[in-house]
């Protein structure tokens, strides 16, 4: 099995889906001849032509809104938002339209659009090229929100998103694009949206995360094992709707839970994860639920020391894990 980068897995998923289904097409800024500013769509315009890899005018609400119209008609659009930070002009289309079409038409219409957006920091992107915006969308029934952390999951989940009959927001941590590599089968496979995945089995503490910070958790768990502490690591993969069963199971397994995400803490995905645990398995807990998240500031500053302060890293995660283990 070939070892490829996270971004190559994304490209592979799109290429395979476009070969499989002529209704799949891509629209977004610079997705054509440039192959995307992160190069996620590289080579696709050469293979599928400019009719199916559309360089759109620079207008996010139209990228999503036009995609929604095409999806409702029966196409399978993949709309690329260049940076998750720039999704804001399209929020009305995503929340008022895509998420509600099926419901408001009593099941008559539906909207199978996939909206891809690179999120997260650690790339000197400053306030507006670093944000984690997932929490804005994780209380919107009708939407599905996916954030894979490995190349294998990225390919399988993106293919599932494209085939899904409902709108899927697909967040890709941009730091993962070239940093994270992994084995990805050449053949066709899909992974279920809505299912979390145990990335490491353990017995002493449970760590729940997604995206880039999931890798920090795995690295920290590795070090912690040397100290004789065994960490169980759950990758949420889908942020909405949450895999409540897997969360409760993972929490109950060790009785000590740390939730880690780069997005700021208050009202973040971790808050809902903590609520699920509190509702479903409070009496299995041996310690208060702990969260390690980005600070509650508007966004990530540009200056390197400030960016570093904002970002999590394996050491910060290790510290929090150790503290929890010794509670």
């Amino acid at each position, binding site marked *: 099995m070939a070892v490829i980068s996270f971004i190559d897995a994304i490209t592979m998923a799109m290429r395979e889906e476009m070969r499989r289904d002529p209704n799949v097409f891509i629209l977004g800024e610079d997705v054509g001849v440039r192959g995307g500013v992160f190069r996620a769509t590289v080579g696709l315009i050469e293979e599928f032509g400019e009719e199916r890899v559309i360089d759109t005018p620079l207008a996010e609400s139209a990228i999503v809104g*036009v995609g929604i*119209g*095409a999806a*409702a008609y029966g196409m399978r659009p993949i709309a690329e938002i260049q940076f998750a930070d720039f999704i804001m002009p399209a929020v009305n289309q995503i929340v008022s339209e895509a998420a509600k079409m099926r*419901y408001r*038409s009593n099941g*008559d219409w539906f909207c199978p659009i996939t909206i891809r957006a690179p999120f997260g920091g650690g790339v000197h992107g400053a306030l507006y090229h670093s944000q984690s915006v997932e929490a804005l969308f994780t209380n919107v029934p009708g939407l599905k929100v996916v954030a894979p952390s490995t190349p294998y999951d990225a390919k399988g989940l993106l293919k599932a998103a494209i085939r899904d009959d409902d709108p899927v927001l697909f967040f890709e941590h941009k730091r993962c694009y070239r940093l994270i590599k992994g084995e990805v089968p050449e053949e066709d496979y899909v992974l279920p949206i809505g299912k979390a995945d145990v990335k490491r089995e353990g017995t002493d503490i449970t760590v729940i995360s997604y995206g880039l910070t999931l890798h920090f958790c795995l690295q920290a768990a590795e070090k912690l094992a040397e100290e004789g502490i065994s960490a169980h690591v759950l990758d949420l993969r889908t942020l909405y709707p949450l895999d409540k069963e897997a969360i409760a199971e993972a929490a109950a397994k060790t009785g000590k839970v740390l939730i880690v995400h780069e997005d700021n803490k208050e009202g973040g995905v971790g808050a809902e994860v903590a609520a699920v645990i509190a509702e479903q398995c409070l009496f299995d807990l041996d310690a208060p639920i702990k969260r390690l998240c980005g600070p509650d500031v508007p966004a990530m500053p540009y200056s390197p020391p400030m960016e570093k302060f904002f970002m999590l890293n394996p050491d910060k995660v290790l510290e929090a894990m150790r503290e929890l283990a010794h509670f």
Partner: protein
Amino acid sequence: MTTKRHEQVGLTDAQVLDMYYYMLLARKIDERQWLLNRAGKVPFVISCQGQEAAQVGAAFALRKGKDYLCPYYRDLGVVLVFGQTARDCMLSAFAKAEDPNSGGRQMPGHFGGKKWNILTGSSPVTTQVPHAVGIALAGKMQKKDFVVYTSFGEGSSNQGDFHEGANFAGVHKLPVIFFCENNKYAISVPLKKQLACESVADRAIGYGFPGVSVDGNDPIEVYRVMKEAVERARSGGGPTLIEAVMYRLVPHSSDDDDRTYRTREEVEEAKKKDPILLFGQYLKEVGLMDENKEQDLLARVQMEVDEATEYAENAPYPAPESTLTHVYGE
């Protein structure tokens, strides 16, 4: 006898009589809904009154069952021509389970129905414009020859989604008709506080396609410019922006009171140009309708509205727990 203007634009006698029927039907459904609202039987009404000529004239230039609609909330006349019935509209007004638009989930005026090629709509204005462009893009990709009609008010022509959608359609030369129903008021705010340009149609030039302004009280003129736009779209010539100028004869909705922002004299003056009145006169002048025929038609429409009201009033509500269905596909 007055010249038969409708023949000059390719409309038959039967067609214009049919147009008048749809205009009248829209008006009478609308009027009944206000009565029902004031009687406390339906919670909300949003009107088409004063806009029926433009709506029916536009819809007659489209092919029912083939072309697509992304209408806005006043387009009762358009959806009736495309196949919705008085009963469908009343089921929506009463929010009953059988409402084909939404199963009673949405307020009236939020049209939709796959069987009629009417895309489901929402309340935030102008969001339907990019959708129309997307349907047209899909049609072009699949080499279909349908056109897409989308409508909105003049206030909505200020929304980003209008400009983003129009620009996209212009760049890709897509078969979309942007149909602006300029009824002079965005709730209470008059045209002069909404736009600095002379006409909504002027906005088209920025997107590289024609913009046409037309008398929205004249269904024949609206049909003529729509027909031209449809033919251009179908032959690959790209979009057209049409501004139909008319007047909203009633308040914005059943919850509005237009006495707070416009004079009764102004409204009375506009009523002299009520499109139903004018078109009725035209049909009489060209000898297609007389008093008797008019009364017969009115009686037929009233009967339809009565039947629809009775049916909808007695129809069952959705089951309360059905609130939980249709969030995601099965």
